[in-house]
């Protein structure tokens, strides 16, 4: 598979050092946690993304993120990349992140663009879940 060095490095680093790259889980029942899970095992990828937010004024800021991904190398790399983009952002800023941004940063081959779409969908769902709790 002709992956960019960025995908390979991201994948390998995440595998070697999962904690540093935000692999893990929060309790989905916590009020300050939003969970998104998209994909299906039969399709070969499932991405679970959790955001932990705090309120500052009328803004909600993403303090921390955890993820777990079942999928090919680029799906795992896309999730790890997305997570780094999210930390510190307001929800409004996070909503602006598009799959294109991820695909560009990771130089995803065209056949793997759906991995970045999955990542975009997971953040949308996590935000929705969080907002429904507020």
């Amino acid at each position, binding site marked *: *598979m002709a992956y960019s060095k960025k995908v390979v490095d991201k*994948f390998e680093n995440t595998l070697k050092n999962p904690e540093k790259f935000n692999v893990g889980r929060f309790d989905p029942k916590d009020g300050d946690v939003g969970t998104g899970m998209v994909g299906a095992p*039969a399709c070969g990828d499932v991405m679970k993304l959790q955001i932990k937010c705090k309120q500052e004024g009328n803004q909600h800021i993403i303090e921390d993120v955890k993820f777990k991904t*079942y999928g*090919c190398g680029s799906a795992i790399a896309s999730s790890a990349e997305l997570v780094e983009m999210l930390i510190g952002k307001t929800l409004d800023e996070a909503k602006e992140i598009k799959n294109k941004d991820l695909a560009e940063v990771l130089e995803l081959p065209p056949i793997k663009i759906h991995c970045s779409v999955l990542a975009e969908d997971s953040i949308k769902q996590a935000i929705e879940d969080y907002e429904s709790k507020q």
Partner: protein
Amino acid sequence: MSKSKPIYLDYASTTPIDERVAEKMLEYMTFNNNFGNAASRSHSFGWQADEAVELARSHVANLVNCDPREIVWTSGATEADNLAIKGIANFYKTKGKHIITSKIEHKAVLDPCRQLERHGFDVTYLEPNEGGVITPGAVRDAIREDTILVSIMHINNELGTINDIASIGELTRENGIFFHVDAAQSTGKVDIDLSTLKVDLMSFSAHKTYGPKGIGALFVRRKPRVRIEAQIHGGGHERGMRSGTLATHQIVGMGEAFRLAKEEMKSDSVKVTEFHEYFLEEVKKIDEIYINGDIQNKVPNILNVSFNFIEGESLIMGLKDIAVSSGSACTSASLEPSYVLRALGRKDELAHSSIRFSFGRFTTKDDVGNTLKLLSNVVDRLRELSPLWEMHLDGIDLDTVEWQAH
């Protein structure tokens, strides 16, 4: 690990050329050696090439116990499959238009069948049993009045499962139907005796048996006589069945590789069986793995394992110092998981999670040991990353989850 060569456990896709074979091939290329055209009848260059080609033909015939005159050189097993299937269909189309094959055949059989369907033939694609085997009973039930050809592989390339071609041959012969067998994975692994098997056509490949790529052969039975329509025309070589100047060095390579296969089949097999047992014993210690294909009815050089809750391509990326292949969609150009594994009737995710390990003549015990060590480590790490594994540990039945397929 340093920049040393990865460990090669993908012998079922191709084998390296045995050094002894490469040496022989080098004798048939340059001006100072034997470079003649085997079709040149007027000088010694041609005669020598012809002699080398005929010797190679006898080596191939000898491995499978047939008459050398029943061997037709082709560019590989793909061409041999095409020649057999289209060749029979086109020659005997007035007798009938029905062909039987299976869902787990190589594309080199399936695609010619699809092509024939576009030309008015009717093809039945048999389902394997859950062990990945095409049973003689399934063939019997599919035979019709107008069936002219049955094409069933000997050993499946993804699973290593063995089909009972002896029994299927009895059925086809009884019913006056031609029987073609793709034996690309069989040579040098299991005994083939065409003097007793009721097989009419059999495809061979050199590069799965330590010979060069780009050469193969089709066995076409003389008694009872089988006729095929040529697919390549231009000079009438190979008794009119396959035109084109013979690639002497390739043919010599295939001949030598098959001669060695006959000599070394036993010792190769003993070694590979040992690796298979060792690997199987160790890999079974990993939780939630599934062996694909009937373990009691397969060759030991191929072992196909699904690592549940892990996607195969990521596993291959994690195992970057090991060369293996996967049935995962992500490693295929089509983004479809292996049609062979799907045909077993298992869940799609087990196809996505599958890895084929295949051992061969140059595999060492260290290769196997190192692979196992790395494997259990990478499986653990990827499961740590897998939301499915987490759910499994939480006792959630993944079949009851409503997934958001995209």
